[in-house]
């Protein structure tokens, strides 16, 4: 198993009241798998994904990557894990506005290099980034700033950035959540094409339609995960979905 989270508990303190978000959630992803986690808005999908990506720590439970505990890693190794093993795609793209598309895509490479090593690896980083941008269909936009791009284009850049270090796992947090359905469909197809090439992807979404291409579907409900079954009356889920 490439990634395995076991018995995750996470509670947020809102002033005096405590909001339990994850209660004994367990999930694992195999190499090459396209795993979709479905859940209503506010069910804790983002929280779970952050924990898997070592952006956040669980109150209880463990996350293992390649058999090694991520939760127990010292800070430097966690940074390395985020930089090398994980690629993040966010709902709101989170590109850096001062930098060009190309620079944004190269950023994960820059972060892991010292000034000296950057001098020798710069060319390769640029080539890799350019190749990825070509792959996501933005070869002609490399020198643009993010704000000159449409939402769908920005998300493509974000996907290229997430993949530039050839991470073992791509974590996508509602990557189409901010896009209209046609553009969302395109983004999904892009992810599916990467998945077809063997990229492990864990995607969370509240949109049932996006789950159609998944190898496996899980439902996050009441702080825990279980298999999502088609037969399950979808009205219940849909009703929750429209609620804010």
């Amino acid at each position: 198993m490439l990634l395995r989270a076991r018995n995750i508990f996470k509670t947020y303190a809102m002033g005096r009241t405590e909001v339990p978000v994850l209660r004994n959630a367990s999930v694992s992803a195999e190499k090459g798998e396209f795993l979709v986690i479905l859940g209503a808005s506010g069910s804790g999908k983002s929280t779970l994904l952050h924990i898997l990506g070592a952006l956040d720590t669980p109150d209880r439970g463990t996350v293992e990557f390649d058999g090694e505990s991520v939760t127990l890693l010292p800070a430097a190794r966690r940074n390395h894990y985020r930089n090398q093993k994980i690629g993040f795609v966010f709902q709101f793209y989170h590109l850096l506005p001062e930098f060009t598309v190309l620079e944004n895509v190269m950023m994960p490479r820059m972060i892991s290099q010292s000034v000296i090593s950057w001098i020798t690896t710069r060319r390769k980083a640029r080539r890799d980034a350019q190749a990825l941008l070509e792959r996501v269909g933005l070869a002609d936009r490399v020198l643009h700033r993010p704000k000159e791009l449409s939402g769908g284009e920005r998300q493509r850049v974000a996907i290229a950035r997430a993949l530039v270090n050839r991470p073992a796992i791509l974590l996508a947090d509602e990557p189409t959540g901010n896009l209209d359905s046609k553009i969302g469909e395109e983004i999904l197809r892009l992810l599916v094409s990467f998945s077809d090439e063997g990229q492990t992807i864990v995607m969370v979404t509240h949109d049932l339609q996006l789950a159609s291409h998944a190898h496996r579907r899980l439902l996050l409900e009441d702080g825990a995960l279980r298999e999502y079954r088609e037969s399950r009356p979808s009205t219940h889920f849909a009703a929750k979905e429209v609620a804010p």
Partner: protein
Amino acid sequence: MYKWFFAWRYLHTKLIALFGVASVTLCVAMVLVVLSVMGGFLDTLRERSRGLHSEIVVESGSIQGFPYYQQFEAYLNKHLPNVIKTTTPAIYSYGIVRVRATAYTRPCRVLGIRLSDYIQVNEFGNGLHYEGFYPGTTKLGAQGMPLAGFNETNRLALPPDHEQASAVWRKKQSDLAAIDEYDARPFETAPFPKELAVTSGGSRVFSMHFESPRYEGPERYGVIIGSDLLFDRLSGGRFDRYLARGANISLTLMPLSQTGSPTGEPPVKLPLRYVDDSHTGIFEIDDLCIYVDFDMVQHKLGMDPQPRVDGGTTAARTNQLLISLQPGVGLYESKAGITDAWNEFILEIDRNLSAADAQSLSFVKVHTWEDLQRPFINAVEKEKVLVTFLFALISIVAIVLLGCIFYMIVEKKTRDIGTLKALGASSGGVASIFISYALVVGISGSVLGTLVGSLFVWNINGIQDFLASLNPQLRVWSPEVYSFDKIPEVVKTADAIWVASIAVVASVIGSFIPAALAGRVWPVQALRYE
């Protein structure tokens, strides 16, 4: 690597960074200007003071002076020949100087000097005006008035000694413009027997008549007058010399007995000839001092040997004995040696001293030129430290401002910081973005500030002239207040390096708190919303 990339990119994409650079620039420029002007002031002060005195000064500080100085000169030359180069006495007194032609009077400090020795022990000779153009013609002894007239070829000329001296000056002069200027107007004229220049603002003024050039009697002792004492300053460091060379000046003196009380005779009135003016560059001196012949004034002040009631004579007195040293001997070792010599000398002559002599001698001390000037130099030094400190304090405001600017940037960039962390940046790495940024801002500001400050200092007199041309009130540097004619315009490399490096360090320190905040950004929180 990305820190520098970020720092650089933020520097030229964020307008606010320019405010940071501007504030560092201003502070660096400000401190550098203050440091340079005050430091230059101090250095000029030191240099000028050195040229004023001789290296060692033996003086009593009391106006009636001290006796046996000649014996001490002989004693020194005998016992310390390897230390002493020249010795010369000088008398200090006070008087009233009067211009006969205009009946203008001023109080003055009278220095009795032996001119030929005096210019050897210090730099007095360099500040003499007519002596510059007619070398060898400035003398303090009895002399007539040089009169311009018409020579055999019917050309307006000065007496032969002046013409020869001016030829010497021309031969030595390398500045062709100065020669051209001189040739265009060798001198201004004042119709004899009047002594006032026809046109004002002349640089060399001589009385003239229609006979042959010559000296006209009666013979009178010469007086050298401080440049600001009688003449007004014109722009460009020139003076309005309205008085012809050799003009009649009278000096009123009040002789004191050896015990310091008036001698009972009426004040002495001395008829003198204006032979030259002296510009030491220190306003307090140039506005106050006149220089006359030592032996003459010693006699007139009753400081020469006087008959005593018991039939003997008193010893001649002086106020100072100026001593210049052989090249290469240390100032303070010499001071110690001369002090020892003085003490031995006193023991030697002790037996036959009168009570009054013993008292006068007890006031005598040996000083170096630095000792004499120290109170003043110390005061200026303290002032420099104080002013620099004040401006450094103002610079702290700039550091706080810088801190605020960085804080604002961190606040605005919280989401980007979260993104960076999600991409694997460490807290320290993120913090060091802002420290690198501060470093870049600090270095740019310091370089600019050094440039601006240096340009300002190099052109400070021009700037002041320009401001004064708009409004005379804006002339902040007046020679009356600051002793020197010009604002110092030298920037020391060491000062510039110090100020710039401190500014860089300060900028970096100013970024510490915002940088720490940036390092502490919790990525999950930063990324949650758009």
